[in-house]
């Protein structure tokens, strides 16, 4: 079958398979069995196949293809090179896990018919796959906005609640503004010469001014989709509104399509980036990282907490991307390769552990019908499997040693350590501050994740009915296990994974760091003396010591234990309300980072019969950027309505004036 000969054909065939699955969902819209038992698992298999095809395609040279679809003089061009293969691998692997989980999760009825949700779900996956292989502006834009549209319908699944509709509207609006910027960017790249295929854009050498315009537009366009600070307000609204498997896909894979787009435009289409672009991306990344994590610390809704943490991780990815541009701008290819590897590795890790955590919140949401942290707690006893997977996710996202999060953070910090060698004076000064910000963000993410895991899974049940929370179903556990295993695998064998990233860095920056790694055991990007890290050895030593301690104590002393009421320094009546609430655990960060927030406190009056204390920390950007813009447009429209006040003589006067003006001036 020549149709499935090359990997590119296979990728397109798999994308069509997803579309067909989505269409099949429409056949029997209301039957939950048909969608969850057959379609979602089939989608998972397609995802797995996509991952395998992408894995094999990473090492092949780029393959291009022209499809019969599209505009008459601009048909769809498709291309599969190392960069797209990597992101397809990421999409396939995560989609496999999430689809399996969705098979179990969508057993419970959502707002819309299960068949429709299945349709949106698979169209969303297929459009993301097509975004990665698109090789001309039209195909890219069609795939890009189909992704935005299908994810909008997913976000507004149960559209009965008003705030879900508002979240959906905000999401699609900012996605559309981003798409407009991307369209302008392609226009700038094409600069009036030749057609709109990426091939032509690569051949064109744009002038510095056009290239800068294209880069800044791409930054705005893809930054809007990635959730970078000024344009991030949709992310904490849209992710919690969507059902959990969809939030996982949104956070894990859709944000990465924005990173893919940015890499494609900057390193591939423009080709020769200027160094100060990197500084812009670095600063934006760090501001988003710090802002994101600080806001994550004060959230009281678990899915909003994870959404803000996504902003933080995207910020770190942008910082890595900024470093790549700085090194590439100064012609240090090897260091650019290191920074790019750190960026791509962090994309991979974030995709896995964020989707794992979102799926855990999904299971918690299903078991308790409760999303706010103030009404959860003690679920580790009722849902051990979900709790331990969440613990793996928590360690990974906090960037602690045996996990994959630590490896990408390690690479990023290594990349930071090389910057003092740059010729630019100020840059050497800026980068230690940047390294400090990255370190602070990593530490803060530890704080946030302890809060997330501790408040949700540990302690006592804050609500009575949590006692009968049931464990997640088989399908859901399979999805969680797949993603947790991926996190552990990526954490323990980074050298082989970097071998995978090598062809990408070689195509984009001309250098690779794959060959310095001394065998699969040790990860030593530049040279062994400089820095090397072997996760397996560290994990083995630590495990050995723990086992030794455990056995030693059992051997020399004894293992007896008995149960009694909690000690708590002698206080007798211990109840669940005495634990820390989510606001409580976030209070130190609110105190330390006070200027970040716009705090509104409601303290009860002294004679209040039922005193209620509430405090809300809002994002200042709403009041600095979004509401002023909305008011400005409002005033402008009010101005325009003066044109249509209803008097016919005034309308005739307009026509008369236009006629005279044209007669007088238009000669």
């Amino acid at each position, binding site marked *: 079958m020549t149709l499935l000969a090359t990997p590119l054909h296979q990728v397109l065939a798999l994308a069509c398979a997803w579309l067909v699955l989505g269409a099949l969902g429409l056949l029997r819209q209301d039957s939950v069995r048909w969608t969850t038992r057959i379609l979602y698992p089939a989608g998972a298999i397609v995802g797995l196949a996509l991952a395998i095809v992408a894995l094999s395609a990473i090492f092949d040279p780029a393959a291009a293809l022209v499809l019969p679809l599209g505009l008459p003089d601009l048909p769809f061009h498709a291309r599969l090179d190392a960069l797209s293969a990597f992101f397809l691998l990421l999409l396939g692997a995560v989609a496999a896990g999430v689809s399996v989980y969705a098979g179990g999760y969508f057993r419970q009825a959502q707002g819309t018919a299960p068949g429709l949700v299945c349709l949106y779900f698979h169209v969303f996956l297929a459009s993301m796959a097509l975004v990665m292989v698109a090789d001309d502006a039209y195909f890219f834009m069609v795939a890009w906005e189909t992704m935005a549209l299908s994810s909008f319908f997913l976000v507004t699944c149960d559209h009965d609640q008003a705030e879900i509709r508002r979240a959906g509207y905000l999401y699609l609006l900012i996605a559309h503004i981003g798409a407009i910027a991307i369209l302008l960017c392609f226009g700038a790249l094409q600069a009036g010469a030749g057609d709109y295929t990426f091939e032509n854009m690569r051949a064109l050498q744009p002038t510095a001014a056009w290239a800068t315009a294209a880069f800044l537009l791409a930054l705005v366009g893809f930054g809007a989709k990635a959730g970078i600070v000024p344009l991030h307000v949709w992310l904490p609204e849209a992710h919690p509104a969507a059902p959990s498997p969809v939030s996982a896909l949104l956070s894990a894979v859709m944000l990465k399509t924005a990173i893919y787009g940015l890499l494609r435009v900057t390193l591939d289409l423009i080709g020769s980036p200027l160094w100060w672009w990197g500084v812009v991306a670095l600063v934006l990344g760090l501001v988003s990282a710090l802002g994101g994590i600080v806001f994550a610390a004060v959230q009281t809704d678990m899915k909003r907490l994870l959404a803000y943490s996504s902003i933080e991780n995207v910020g770190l990815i942008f910082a890595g991307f900024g470093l790549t541009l700085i090194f590439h701008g100064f012609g240090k290819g090897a260091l650019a390769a290191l920074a790019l590897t750190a960026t791509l590795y962090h994309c991979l890790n974030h995709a896995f552990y964020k989707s794992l955590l979102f799926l855990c919140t999904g299971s918690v949401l299903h078991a308790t019908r409760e999303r706010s942290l103030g009404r959860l707690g*003690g679920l*580790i*006893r009722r849902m051990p499997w979900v709790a331990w997977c969440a*613990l793996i996710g*928590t360690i990974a996202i906090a*960037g*602690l*040693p045996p996990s994959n999060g630590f490896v990408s953070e*390690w690479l990023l*910090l*290594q990349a930071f*350590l090389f910057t*003092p060698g740059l010729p630019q004076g100020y840059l*050497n000064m800026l980068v*230690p501050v940047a*390294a*400090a910000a990255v*370190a602070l963000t*990593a*530490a*803060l993410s*530890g*704080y946030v*994740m*302890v809060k997330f895991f*501790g408040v949700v899974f*540990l*302690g*006592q049940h804050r609500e009575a009915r949590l006692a009968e929370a049931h464990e997640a179903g088989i399908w859901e556990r399979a999805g969680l296990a797949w993603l947790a295993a991926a996190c552990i695998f990526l954490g323990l064998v980074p050298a082989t994974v970097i071998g995978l990233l090598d062809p990408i860095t070689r195509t984009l920056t001309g250098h690779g760091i794959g060959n310095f790694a*001394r065998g699969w055991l040790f990860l*030593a990007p530049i040279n*062994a*003396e*400089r*820095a*090397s*890290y*072997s996760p397996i*050895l*560290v994990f083995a*030593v*630590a495990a050995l*010591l*723990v086992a030794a*301690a455990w056995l030693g*104590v059992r051997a020399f002393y004894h293992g007896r*234990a008995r*149960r*009694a009421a*909690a*000690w*708590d*320094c002698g*206080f007798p009546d211990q109840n669940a309300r*005495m634990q*820390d609430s989510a606001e409580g*655990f976030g209070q*130190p960060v609110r*105190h*330390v980072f006070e200027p970040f927030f716009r705090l509104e406190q409601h303290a009860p009056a002294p004679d209040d019969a039922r005193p209620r204390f509430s405090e809300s920390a809002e994002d200042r950007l709403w009041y600095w950027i979004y509401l002023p813009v909305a008011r400005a447009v409002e005033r402008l429209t009010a101005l325009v309505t003066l044109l249509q006040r209803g008097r016919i003589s005034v309308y005739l006067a307009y026509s008369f004036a236009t006629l005279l003006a044209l007669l007088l001036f238009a000669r």
Partner: protein
Amino acid sequence: MISLSGVAAQFTELALAVLLAPLLTGWVNQCRAWLQNRSAPPLLQPYRVLNKLFQKEVVLAYGASPLFRVAPYLIFGCLCAAAAIVPTLGTDLPLNAAADAIALVGLLALARMFIALAGMDVGTAFGTLGARREMLVGFLAEPALLMVLFTASLISNSTSLATIAATLAHKEFVIHPSLAFAGVAFTMVSLAENARIPVDNPATHLELTMIHEAMVLEYSGRHLAMIEWAASLKLFVYSCIGLVLFFPFGIASGGDWLGLVLALPALLGKLALGGALLALIEMLSAKMRIFRAPEFLGTAFLLAVLAMLVHVLLER
């Protein structure tokens, strides 16, 4: 290239760390008592406490989950691994290639996370209070520690602790002003991390002021012993890091047995001196309100970043 002396050095260092840690704590308590001119508890008192606790039967709260029972061993394991990484006697340790400075900070952070989670597990008021404060101190101290280690790695342009120790100890002696800043920052961070006086009082019984003790209130028997032992091990690790970065003289370079033998007394002497110095610092300062701790650690963080800037400016 794993040499026999390296392996020997590695095992002796690990054994030394695990066994001498309570001794160091005992020595510090003795120095404190003398400085407060009251009669000091015997030097080996911590060993007796540990032995007593190991005998005792463990009492678990009804709500305690398996995490609560596993946490002490995990914490102890992580800190032992951290101790194994820090070169106290020789520099060519087999584990050098396995982990570097960033991994060390990671391991300490992992230990901190587990103790905080254990604190929150039973769901008492003080447990979560302690966990919240521990993480507050943690998220300010960890970046400062990382910056201190970065300053050293910029000087020796490598992040592996052995290379840092080698360049600082065996290269010709150079005054590094950045290390001075880093030194001050490091002391402030280690005071905060080890729950010493200015941030937290190890000997206090007033739960509301505790940070470290509040989390381990629910532990008893062998679990409490492991936690106590881990705490003293943490103090030991921090002092070894301080020695490697600021007083690396006497650490044996690769392969010579004689150097190893001589390094032991040097290490003990330096540790004794360090312990006394720690006790002195504790006597001179009073415990701060918990919301003064962020400013204290903020200055430490600032000093560490300043150290890096000074390095980039002056020593480039």
